[in-house]
């Protein structure tokens, strides 16, 4: 029964423009990361070549090409930013339409007057959303690989491909968190617009508010680089900075940077577990919420 729900969900999403829009956005995002990486590479190499020529005329030895010091996968470093910013929003939309369509069109009444139980239904929906996200990320992985081949004029090594796959695996986990957020808000509210707005609010909090609070940065620190002004208590910021391991977006960025070797900051197992734990908590929440959800009436389609 879970497979029936999931297959139907995938087919339904595939027929909708929203899915094509999601796929196109992901591909543009991936291609953009590749183009920016390529542009950056070309600029660095161009400046380096000019410098080598200048140094040669002065009889000075040329330093090593700085691009060779950078890891090959650094070409895709922008993806680490795009996934939490754009990818997470798209995952919210995916989670939202997975459940909201059934309510707005009154299909829930037809579904739940049949043998299926609510846990099976929601698990089927989650599996459907996961398969769609996996497919989109798989296409994105193929585009990334192609970008690496074009820029480096060589196939990625087995290790590099493994790192790339690891990054996309982590991204799938991260995006599922937001797909669950999209689903949970549908089950908590009675209006489609309010559900989507609430999910977007959650995304804003996770992506911007929590990292700012847990970073321990005072709001004016970027303007005034005095670390500990006299008579200003730092207790609040010291306390909130302890919650940093639980800022999932920061953890995602750090672990991704480590996997792609684009950052010197190391991710932690705690960080990975915090993302997985949030996903698990949200999954449990939607299973519980769907049990008490009223499917005898439709949601407002405002």
């Amino acid at each position, binding site marked *: 029964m879970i497979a*029936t729900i999931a297959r139907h969900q995938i087919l*339904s999403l595939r027929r909708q423009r929203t899915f094509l829009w999601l796929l196109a956005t992901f591909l543009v995002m991936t291609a953009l990361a590749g183009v920016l990486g390529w542009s950056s590479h070309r600029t660095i190499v161009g400046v380096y070549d000019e410098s080598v020529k200048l140094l040669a005329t002065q009889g000075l030895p040329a330093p090593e090409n700085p691009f060779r010091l950078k890891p090959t996968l650094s070409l895709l470093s922008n993806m680490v930013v795009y996934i939490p910013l754009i990818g997470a929003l798209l995952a919210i939309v995916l989670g939202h339409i997975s459940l909201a369509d059934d309510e707005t069109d009154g299909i829930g009444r*037809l579904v739940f*007057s049949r043998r299926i139980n609510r846990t099976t239904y929601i698990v089927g929906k989650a599996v459907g959303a996961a398969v769609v996200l996996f497919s989109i990320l798989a296409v994105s992985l193929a585009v990334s690989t192609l970008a690496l081949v074009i820029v480096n004029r060589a196939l990625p090594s087995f290790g590099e491909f493994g790192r790339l796959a690891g990054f996309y695996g982590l991204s799938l986990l991260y995006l599922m968190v937001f797909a669950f957020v999209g689903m949970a808000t549908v089950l908590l509210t009675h209006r489609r617009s309010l559900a989507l707005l609430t999910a977007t609010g959650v995304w804003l909090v996770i992506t911007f508010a929590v990292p700012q609070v847990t970073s321990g940065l005072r709001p004016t620190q970027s303007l005034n680089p005095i670390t500990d002004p006299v008579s200003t208590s730092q207790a609040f910021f010291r306390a909130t900075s302890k919650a940093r391991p639980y800022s999932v977006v920061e953890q995602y960025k750090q672990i991704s940077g480590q996997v792609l070797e684009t950052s010197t900051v190391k991710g932690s197992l705690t960080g990975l577990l915090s993302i997985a734990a949030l996903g698990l908590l949200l999954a449990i929440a939607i299973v519980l919420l769907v049990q008490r959800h009223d499917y*005898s009436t*439709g949601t407002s389609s405002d």
Partner: protein
Amino acid sequence: MHQSAPVTTGGPAIELVGLSHRYNIEPVLRNVDLTIEPGEVFGFLGHNGAGKTTAVNILTTLITPTSGTARVHGFDVVAQRREVTAQIGYLPAEVRMYPHMTARENLEFFAKLSGVADARRAVTETLDYLDSADLADRRVGSFSTGMRQRIGIAQAIVHKPNVLFLDEPTAGLDPVGVRQLRDTILRLNRELGMTVFMNTHLLSEVAKVCTTIGVLNHGELIYKDSIEATTARFPDETSLEDIYVRMESIPS
């Protein structure tokens, strides 16, 4: 239609005992006792907000009653939900289904949810039975109200239930659509032996289709009898509409 009807425990098709339901503190159904025998076409009448849809929502397992019991072919709608859903088909007032998918894809999905082993065959047979095979491969989003209603009936009977619940089935239909629906209900009742429970406002259709009527007034069942007995009981009234208006005006 190849699939056999689900096994029943005998006894009444529908049995409500002391059924009550309230939304927050607002009572919607008040201590309703009702028995409908297998093979009846039951017309459930009542003004807007009388509690008809709430009764159907309870009988189709969509909501849990506040108190009392509801049974379908002997199975309790709360304690034996799975058995009840095998017995019933349901057509809500507004039928939408998945607009991006064809009628066949929609129907196969609902057939599988009902545990039909050969969903494709069941859908083909159901559409043939309803003379709607021409709609099979068209997307539901492009359908008129009448077409949607035909596919709605198909989804309600694709698993060949014993009891069919229809909530305001004629809403939005033109006169031809209403006549087709009436013929379909009569065929399902006479040829397949389905018990039909129909919420409606259209009293002319009730007179032509139903064998028994019940009248719900502010959540209370104020009347239940066969059509023949009803017309005999109110000899001064010329139509069912007059009888209904008179019933509604009499305190319970």
